[in-house]
């Protein structure tokens, strides 16, 4: 690691927050602070050609893993804990070549999903050896972007989708984030009150990025977003967008409290257990997801999830299993 790594890390940490908060504004105004979606290595974007990828991974394997960070993060979130990062462990224990992706988390999730679908197309084409499997790992919002990209790939018949056999979601709000939904309703109420001060508060609250707003209902497609915009309710009854049947999905959710009732309500502080588990824990009949594919980890908060030994142990357990039979599209 270079000598200026701590400075770079603090800077990218700050820029990650700015991108998450107002990244859509930065992109609209062509601000240089807006991140472009890119594969990253040691804080720098990697050009997606075979030579660059060979230089990055001289021992590249045919199985690749793409890791996506969450809202207001950068790929450095995966290196934030005391433990070794998941990518390095996958490489060592399973022979999977990891790629970390950075993106502007303030952009709408469907927009990032479409960009990610293009990036994976380029990555698979440029990978030094023929790719036999693409493993998607999404932390928080990253999981929704992975899902969004898979929907784009299914619609556009992109070849890489057939290589995706497994996807891992860590602390992903599949059923949305209640805090954002409450914030949305409060903002609309404030805007409806004929008072300049409440309007000002509503205007300031509405500065939050499209990415944050999309988290409310976990809007992974443009159709979801369009349906949400004129609504004034806490819940979109047409959600959730189903998980793609041809992929084996593995969900990791957590809660700060070990008390079951508190865990259900507050989850890992950002994502309630029912949302992180896609209701597989709370409403078993709702989703045809094997119970083994949902792991609930009490005693962990949201920010601990991208780099934690307990999370890795569950991912390792999942990756060590033989592939389950999934539906063909």
């Amino acid at each position, binding site marked *: 690691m270079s000598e200026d790594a701590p400075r770079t890390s603090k*800077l990218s940490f700050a*820029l990650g927050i*700015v991108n998450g908060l107002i990244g859509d*504004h*930065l992109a609209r*105004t062509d*601000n*240089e*602070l*807006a991140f472009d979606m890119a594969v990253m290595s040691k804080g720098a974007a990697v050009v997606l050609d075979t030579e660059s990828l060979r230089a990055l991974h001289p021992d590249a394997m045919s199985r690749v893993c793409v890791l996506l960070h969450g809202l207001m993060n950068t790929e450095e979130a995966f290196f934030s804990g005391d433990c070794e990062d998941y990518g390095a462990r996958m490489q060592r224990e399973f022979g999977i070549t990891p790629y970390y992706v950075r993106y502007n988390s303030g952009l709408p999730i469907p927009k990032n999903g479409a960009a990610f679908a293009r990036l994976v197309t380029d990555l698979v084409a440029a990978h030094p050896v023929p790719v036999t499997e693409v493993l998607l790992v999404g932390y928080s919002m990253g999981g929704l972007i992975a899902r969004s990209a898979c929907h784009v790939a299914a619609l556009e018949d992109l070849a890489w989708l057939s290589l995706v056999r497994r996807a891992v979601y860590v602390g992903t709000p599949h059923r949305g984030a209640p805090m954002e939904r409450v914030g949305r309703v409060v903002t609309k109420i404030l805007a409806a009150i004929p008072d*300049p*001060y409440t*309007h*000002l508060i509503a*205007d*300031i609250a509405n500065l939050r990025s499209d990415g944050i707003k999309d988290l409310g209902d976990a809007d992974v497609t443009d159709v979801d977003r369009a349906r949400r915009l004129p609504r004034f309710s806490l819940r979109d009854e047409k959600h959730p967008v189903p998980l793609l049947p041809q992929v084996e999905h593995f969900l990791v959710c957590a809660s700060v409290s070990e008390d079951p009732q508190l865990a259900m309500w507050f989850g890992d502080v950002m994502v309630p257990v029912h949302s992180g588990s896609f209701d597989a824990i709370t409403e078993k009949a709702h989703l045809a997801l094997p119970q083994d594919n949902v792991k609930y980890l009490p005693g962990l908060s949201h920010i601990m999830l991208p780099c934690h030994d307990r999370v890795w142990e569950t991912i390792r357990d999942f990756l060590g299993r033989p592939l389950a039979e999934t539906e063909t599209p």
Partner: protein
Amino acid sequence: MSSLKLVRGMRKLLTDAVEHGSRAVETIQLETAKRPFTVLEAISPIAVPAKTVHVFYDAAVNVTHASIRGVNGVVGIALDAAIALAEKTTDEE
């Protein structure tokens, strides 16, 4: 991300903040003053002078904030020129 690119991005962000902040404060000042003026303008003996003061008040607020935004724009252009010059110098070196 290069330092100059970062500075240019920060410059844009700051001028955007001043622009939007000025518009928000202007709206608040106009809307807040509108209420007492509406009451005063409803009282017939003082309606005309109240309306006159209201017009002058609104004009003063508009001009003040337009000046803030104008200076903000000029400072932004000047900083852009300085950043471009610094970039040129760095490239030549």
